[in-house]
C-alpha cells in the first residue's frame, strides 16, 4: 500500500494561517492504514492547529471530515455542500488523493497534509518499509523477489556495481547490497541462471504520467 508521513505541523500551519475557514479532509484508505491521514490523525491535527490559532489570536478555524477514499471521486458525493463556505482545503490523503480533490474543487486552494513516501509493507504498527517504485517493468520473478530498482541505490538491473563490499552498499555500509541478497536467494533456490542473462535497459516508464486500463476493460474506453 501507499505509505505517507505527516508533514511538520509548522509547515501545515504556515500554509493555512492566511485562511479563516479551513476544512481538513482525512482519507480512509492507505493513509489510515499507515497512521498518517486517517480520522484519528485528522482529529489530532485539528486540535493542535486550532490551539495554535488561539495562541496567535487568529479567528481562523479548522474543521475536519474523513471520506472513505480520496482517490475515487465516488466518495466525494455529498462533499459539495460540506465544502461550501470554506476558504481552503487541507487533504491528508496521498498525492493522488490531493490531486483528485483539487481537480474536483478547482476554485479552492488544496494543501497536502502528508508527504507521500512510498509503496511499502507494514513491518510493525507505525513501521513501514519501501518495497516498490512502480517502475512499470517488474523483474521480481528473476531476482528472487528482491527489487533491484527499490533496493539498489543505483537501481541496477544486471548485477552489483563495484561499490559492493562484504555484502553492503557503498552508499551506506549499514545498507545490505540488493544484488548480494538477490544472488544469495537465487543460489538457495538453484536459480542463478536467471541473473546470468543480460536484461535490456529499462524504459523508465515512471518518468511520464501513466494511465492503467486493465485489458478486460480496454474495449469500453477505445476511442
Amino acid at each position, binding site marked *: 500500500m501507499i505509505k505517507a508521513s505527516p508533514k511538520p505541523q509548522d509547515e501545515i500551519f504556515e500554509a493555512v494561517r492566511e485562511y479563516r475557514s479551513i476544512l481538513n479532509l482525512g482519507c*480512509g484508505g492507505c493513509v*489510515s*492504514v*499507515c*497512521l498518517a491521514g*486517517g*480520522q*484519528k490523525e485528522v482529529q489530532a491535527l485539528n486540535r493542535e492547529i486550532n490551539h495554535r490559532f488561539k495562541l496567535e489570536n487568529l479567528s481562523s478555524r479548522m474543521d475536519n471530515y*474523513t471520506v*472513505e*477514499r480520496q482517490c*475515487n471521486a*465516488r*466518495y466525494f*458525493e*455529498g462533499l459539495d455542500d460540506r465544502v461550501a463556505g470554506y476558504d481552503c482545503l487541507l487533504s491528508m490523503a496521498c498525492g493522488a488523493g490531493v490531486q483528485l480533490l483539487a481537480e474536483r474543487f478547482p476554485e479552492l486552494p488544496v494543501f497536502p497534509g502528508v508527504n507521500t513516501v512510498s509503496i511499502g509493507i507494514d513491518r510493525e*504498527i*507505525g513501521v513501514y518499509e519501501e518495497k516498490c517504485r512502480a517502475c512499470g517493468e517488474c523483474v521480481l520473478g528473476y531476482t528472487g523477489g528482491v527489487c533491484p530498482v527499490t533496493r539498489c541505490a543505483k537501481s541496477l538491473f544486471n548485477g552489483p556495481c563495484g561499490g559492493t563490499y562484504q555484502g553492503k552498499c557503498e552508499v551506506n555500509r549499514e545498507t545490505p547490497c540488493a544484488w548480494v541478497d538477490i544472488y544469495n536467494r537465487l543460489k538457495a533456490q538453484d536459480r542463478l541462471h536467471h541473473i546470468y542473462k543480460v536484461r535490456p535497459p529499462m524504459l523508465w516508464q515512471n518518468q511520464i504520467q501513466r494511465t492503467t486500463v486493465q485489458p478486460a476493460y480496454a474495449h469500453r474506453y477505445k476511442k
Partner: protein
Amino acid sequence: MKVNTSEIVALLNAEKPKMKLWLKVCAHCSLCAESCFLYTVKDRDPRYMPSYKVIHSIGTLYRKKRRISHQDLETIGDIVWNRCVLCTRCYCPFGIDIPAMITLGRKICRTQNIYRRYDEK
C-alpha cells in the same frame, strides 16, 4: 457511551429515498455473493454476502433509527469495516449500489467516532 441519534437520523434522512428503495428492491437472490471476493475466500460464509452486510448495517440503522445503541453501532462498524473493503466490485442484478450503502454505514459510524483502528493489534 452516548450516541448522537439526531446526527444519525439527519444522515439517514438525507439519503432516505434511494436507500429505502434499495433495501426494498433487494430480492435476497444472493447473486451478489459470488461477486464478493471476501465471501469466496471466507468459505462462503453467508455473513460476508453483500446483501447480508447491507441489511445488517444500513437496514438496522433505518429500522432502529433513534433507538440505535452504541453496541449496535459497534456491530455495524464491524460489518462495514471488517467484512467489506469497499473494492466496489460487488454486482447486483437490480442495480443496487451496495458500496454506496456501505459507505453511508461508515459515514454514520465515523460521526460517532467508530472507525477502523490501525494502531491496535
